[in-house]
């Protein structure tokens, strides 16, 4: 009896230990890893040499959110793994969905990779936490000179620290199918939003019997669809950056009404591709490549690669132009964003090796030239542009390149301190959605949106979760970063 009791207690103890081990296993591992990493960080190059001498490879992890260039980068990484003499093994991983959440979780669990593709939201969130390495600490003078044209104070250089180097750029354009335009008897792509609505309706009326429609956008997620379309046109049309007036230091969404009324027509049954409401960008692209969609708006850096590699389409059949605005008005520039940038985890135990990998793979001129020539991005580096022979797309389609209608724009409050500014009710994208689906009156909804954003902004200042953003003398035609 006694023996059975002892046995039972021992068994229970073992089960509890097992459970605890299960629960704490991660912590234990993390602690061990941290201990190892701290030690590793503190050791000198000699220690690394010892590690190398023992034959154990240093693993450098890279995370990316970009699917369009994944095959190219993977090829370069494989090549590097084969040829590098530093005993480094690079692991390249894709996190195309929920990239920011993956980064958040990795930061919390202390498992952030060594190198990551830069993305605005994750960059802003952790830059003040000291999570990103200052690249100036590792760059030699040659490298600094080589990249001097893509160093933008207030963007990638903050407080004299350089956090990432954009090597390509992207902006948004209207992509159209030339063949469909010809068949519908449209001589040239639209310059105004009114023309765009008329062209879309014409295409749909003439060709919908063949399953061809005038316009589509990936509206399953309002923010994803509008960030690459309506919002960009509105920047040029109104001179405001996503509704924010940098001179007055306040939001005003009311000038959006005219555009939204036209968007309602654009998305109506007699114009739009059926099922836009539940469309993601890739299904949209497959239909565009299949010649079923007349026009849509998207990013200039991604589409050439997509139609070359992902969903092949004859390059002669498509082109792109600036996003049309109401009456062709241009009161400001539209945003262009630096792409191809990578941040390095400042807390990486292999910081120096991580920078070496970054430098050897991603800042290598062969890589940059190949990237541009392969159609994965539009280079913004003068030396690369001079040397590269980009694909026919980039030679023949001038609006794929960053031009004088594009500029780096300052961040409005809801981007500059996104978590600190809590807007009650639906955000600007969902509000637009309710307008163009006819569920809300444009003027009333935009007035309400203006009030809610201004209140959230003022509350953020009052609660010290945000700060006042005003740029005296801000000129939307010649925008300056703060």
């Amino acid at each position, binding site marked *: 009896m006694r023996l059975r*009791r002892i046995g*039972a*207690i021992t068994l*229970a*103890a073992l*089960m*509890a230990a*097992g*459970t*605890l081990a299960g*629960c704490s296993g991660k912590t234990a591992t993390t602690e061990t890893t941290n201990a190892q990493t701290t030690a590793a960080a503190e050791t000198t190059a000699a220690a690394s040499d010892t590690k190398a001498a023992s034959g154990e490879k240093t693993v450098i992890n890279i995370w990316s*959110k970009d699917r369009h260039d994944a095959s190219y980068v993977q090829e370069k990484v494989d090549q590097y793994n084969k040829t590098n003499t530093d005993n480094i093994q690079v692991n390249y991983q894709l996190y*195309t*969905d*929920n*990239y*920011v*959440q993956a980064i*958040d979780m990795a*930061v*919390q669990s202390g498992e952030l990779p060594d190198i990551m593709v830069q993305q605005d*939201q994750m960059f802003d*969130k*952790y830059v003040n*936490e000291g*999570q990103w390495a200052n690249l100036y600490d590792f760059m030699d003078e040659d490298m600094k000179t080589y990249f001097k044209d893509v160093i933008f104070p207030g963007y990638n250089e903050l407080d004299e620290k350089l956090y990432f180097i954009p090597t390509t750029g992207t902006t948004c354009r209207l992509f159209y199918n030339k063949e469909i335009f010809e068949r519908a008897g449209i001589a040239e792509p639209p310059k105004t939003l009114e023309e765009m609505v008329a062209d879309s309706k014409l295409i749909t009326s003439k060709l*919908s019997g063949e*399953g061809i429609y005038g316009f589509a956008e990936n*509206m*399953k*997620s*309002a*923010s*994803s669809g509008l*960030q690459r379309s309506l919002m960009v046109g509105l920047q040029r049309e109104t001179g405001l950056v996503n509704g924010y007036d940098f001179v007055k230091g306040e939001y005003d969404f009311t000038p959006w009404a005219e555009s939204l009324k036209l968007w309602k027509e654009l998305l109506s049954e007699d114009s739009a*591709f*059926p*099922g836009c*409401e*539940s469309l993601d960008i890739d*299904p949209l692209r497959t*239909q565009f490549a299949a010649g*079923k969609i007349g026009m849509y708006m998207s990013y200039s850096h991604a589409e050439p690669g997509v139609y070359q590699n992902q969903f092949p389409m004859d390059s002669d059949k498509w082109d792109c132009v600036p996003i049309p605005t109401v009456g062709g008005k241009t009161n400001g520039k539209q945003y262009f964003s630096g792409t191809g940038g990578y941040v390095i985890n400042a807390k990486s135990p292999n910081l120096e090796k991580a920078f070496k990998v970054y430098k050897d793979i991603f800042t290598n001129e062969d890589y940059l030239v190949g990237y541009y020539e392969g159609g994965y991005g539009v280079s913004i580096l003068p030396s690369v542009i001079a040397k590269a022979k980009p694909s026919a797309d980039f030679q023949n389609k001038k609006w794929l390149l960053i031009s004088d209608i594009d500029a780096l724009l300052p961040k409005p409050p809801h981007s500059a301190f*996104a*978590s*600190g500014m*809590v807007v*009650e*009710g*639906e*955000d*600007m*994208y*969902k509000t637009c*959605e*309710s307008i163009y*689906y006819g*569920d809300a009156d444009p003027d009333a909804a935009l007035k309400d949106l203006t009030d809610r954003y201004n209140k959230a902004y003022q509350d953020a200042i009052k*609660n010290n*979760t945000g700060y006042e953003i005003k740029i005296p003398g801000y000129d939307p035609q010649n925008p300056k970063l703060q």
Partner: protein
Amino acid sequence: MKETISRNLRIKKTLKHNLQTYSFLLPNLILFTACSLYPVVWTLKYVFYQYGGYGTGKPIFVGIANLARVFRDKVYWESVLHTFTYGFGKVLIIIPLAFFLAFLLNQQKRGNGVTQSIMFLPTIMSSAVMGLVFYLLFNAYNGEVNKYLLESGIISRPVNWLGKDHAMKTLILTAVWGGVGNYMVYFIAGIQQISEDAIESARIDGAGKLQTIWYIIVPMLGPILKIIMMLAITSAFNDITNVMVLTEGGPNNATMVMSLYGYRYFFPISAAEATVPQYGYGAAVSVVSAAIAGVVTVIYLKVSKKLDDIY
């Protein structure tokens, strides 16, 4: 003296017995605390804070502001309404259908076993895959359903099954397809528990097939029906994967259900989603949603007592 010794022995015995009991309970208790109790307490705490998650600064105490915001939030209450539409739509179709299938497939006929397995398959299929399959079937531009309807001349223009007017119906259909096999199995188990004698005596008394079902089988299924209904209602309140994959709650929140509404404040849905996490408000939404689900469950339990009485 003798009494004291006896009491001490009793205490010792009780302690030993308790030690053994608690040793067995400990692993579960730890797991329950870590996986259930802690998240609930965490959620309740953040109801009173404004917090954007790790790396966004310290949480700010805001009192009952988040709860007050829930009651002002029109979109949330619309999502509650959608949840009820979805839940009742699903339950109203799935329960009779599952019962009908169970009744049909419970008979000793060739092929019934295989059909039962096929009907049960969607239950073990991932909801995300199921959503994707239904997207391929129902998308407006090249979905199989539209293709068939167009070819057979029933419609002349593609129907937007995932658009504002039909998205909720499509979601309910997906949920019914995904869950009917499961409830069918419960019903089969219930039917098999019914004594053959009761059915036979009803037949001897002259009851027809329908009368036997209505007056004998259905009342005798009371207890299992109560559980099935309970499961159907609670799962309908928590279904988000289907909605996420098929519509993400759109178009313009037409299929937004309350659990997904809360979820998107913790995990903004798509990669390009501009909404930043609002843990405090998400917690408040979750707590109110849990309270609503609780109230519905209590009402149901009261109503369902009648089913017990019938039995």
